[in-house]
């Protein structure tokens, strides 16, 4: 898939929560082809401490409106700077990068999409894609608290959504792996994106139930192109670049303790 370096313009800035920002980007030309689960490397202007680009997963691609969405959690100076962007500003992106989630399988395939925190971002695009390709996605989304749940109405518009919060302010109280859904239903496969402890526990559940499972990693990156070999993850094939071979990995290829 051809990669580009492009200046996109900010069409809308939404603040779903004080700790997050949603940037809707557009371009005069049709946006390049990309697949759910891929990411972009964003250049942050005006932040001397932010030397490298920031890898951000693609939240959603709206082909009709020619929009690419980035859902960003404000963590450090770079992401705070990105949150200051205004409508009409430009943002320089290298994209699309990485492998993305698995393509849709047979019709009616039941796919559980598990997201935690800002890790829900790429699952929106993937869920929409799966639905459009005849699969039956189900979302299981976890957050600290009700106010940390992002894009709920958009997820709801695609497929059933099950929620856990650590404080019980929405959905079931606890972690995603404690949700009653997992005791009641089985799935053909699982895709996960979120904090590593959450992904490890979902991977354990998958392994225990014999369900195929893929996880999206977010190791620290520099180039995003597989050139610098900084973002490696230990796999059964040795150290491989998360930016190029990943970010999505089959859990059987990883060396996690499961």
């Amino acid at each position: 898939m051809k990669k580009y370096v492009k200046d996109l313009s900010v069409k809308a800035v939404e603040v779903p929560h004080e700790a997050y920002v949603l940037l809707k980007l557009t371009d005069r030309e049709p946006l390049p082809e990309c697949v759910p689960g891929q990411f972009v490397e964003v250049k942050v202007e005006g932040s001397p401490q932010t030397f490298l680009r920031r890898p951000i997963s693609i939240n959603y691609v709206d082909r009709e409106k020619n929009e690419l969405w980035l859902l960003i959690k404000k963590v450090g100076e770079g992401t705070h700077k990105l949150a200051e962007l205004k409508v009409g500003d430009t943002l320089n992106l290298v994209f699309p990068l990485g492998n993305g989630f698995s393509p849709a399988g047979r019709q009616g395939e039941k796919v559980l999409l598990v997201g935690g925190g800002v890790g829900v971002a790429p699952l929106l695009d993937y869920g929409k894609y799966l639905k459009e390709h005849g699969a039956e996605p189900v979302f299981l989304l976890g957050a600290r608290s009700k106010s940390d749940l992002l894009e709920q109405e958009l997820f709801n518009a695609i497929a059933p959504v099950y929620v856990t919060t650590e404080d019980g302010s929405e959905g079931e109280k606890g972690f995603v792996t404690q949700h009653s859904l997992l005791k009641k239903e089985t799935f053909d496969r699982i895709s996960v994106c979120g904090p590593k402890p959450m992904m490890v526990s979902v991977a354990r559940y998958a392994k225990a139930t014999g369900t195929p499972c893929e996880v999206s990693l977010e190791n620290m990156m520099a180039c995003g192109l597989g050139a610098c070999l900084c973002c490696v993850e230990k796999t059964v094939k040795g150290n491989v670049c998360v930016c190029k071979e990943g970010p999505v990995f089959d859990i059987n290829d990883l060396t996690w303790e499961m």
Partner: protein
Amino acid sequence: MTASGTFGYGVEFADFVNLEEIGGIIVKGTTLHAREGNDYPRMVETASGMLNCVGLQNKGVDYFCEHIYPEIKDIKTNMIVNVSGSSLEDYAACAARVNELEHIPAIELNISCPNVKQGGMAFGVTTEGAAAVVRAVREVYDKTLIVKLSPNVTSISDIALAVEDAGADAVSLINTLMGMVIDIEKRKPVLSIATGGMSGPAVKPVAVRCVWQVAKAVNIPVVGLGGIMNANDAIEFFLAGASAIEIGTANFIDPAVTVKVAQGIDDWLDRHGCKSVGEIVGQLNA
């Protein structure tokens, strides 16, 4: 040219630049045997730069010759292999293997990697060690031999003189500066092996100084690198005495930076009535 370890084998950047517009592509550090490299985390950002401790991850010279070389040999630029090792025998055997490759006109001998326990920089920090590696490789390698020098030494000019005397055709400098970043909450170094090699614009003044010192000391060409982000940075290196430059870390920020710098150098030369880079090499006003 592109600096080793920052541009893969070139093909990773083919969507962004016409590789044949680049003077040379110095591919990832290659060793006699495959190396897994160091554990993650291997990279940390710093103000105007970054540190890495990749540790020469590569699949070994045989894999390079059999699987990568056929993919890159017809790219019409100078494809140069960066050769590293942990013993004189390894360096020589790896270089000898690359010597057989028709479309590899030169090697860059890495005697300055700060991220591997044995070898690497150990050879590059003494005049005797540096000369010994160059002599061993010179015996088996008859094409252009560039030697990449470490700035982590007391006198980089002395090392440069030693490798010139041992048969190097050119020197390139600087490799990364050894550094360290600490996570103050965990009270632990961020990088998996504690230290790493620092690169990016933060190291540029050190690199320019090293190039200036070495260019005055030796008679062989000097290739300058270290934090070059744009054409003006490149011109500084030429004025300091470099007759060619490498672009490294900047490739991570702008994958098309190489051709932009090349164009910017041409524009600068035009504006100053110069016909070629050669006219400004080492031409500092007194």
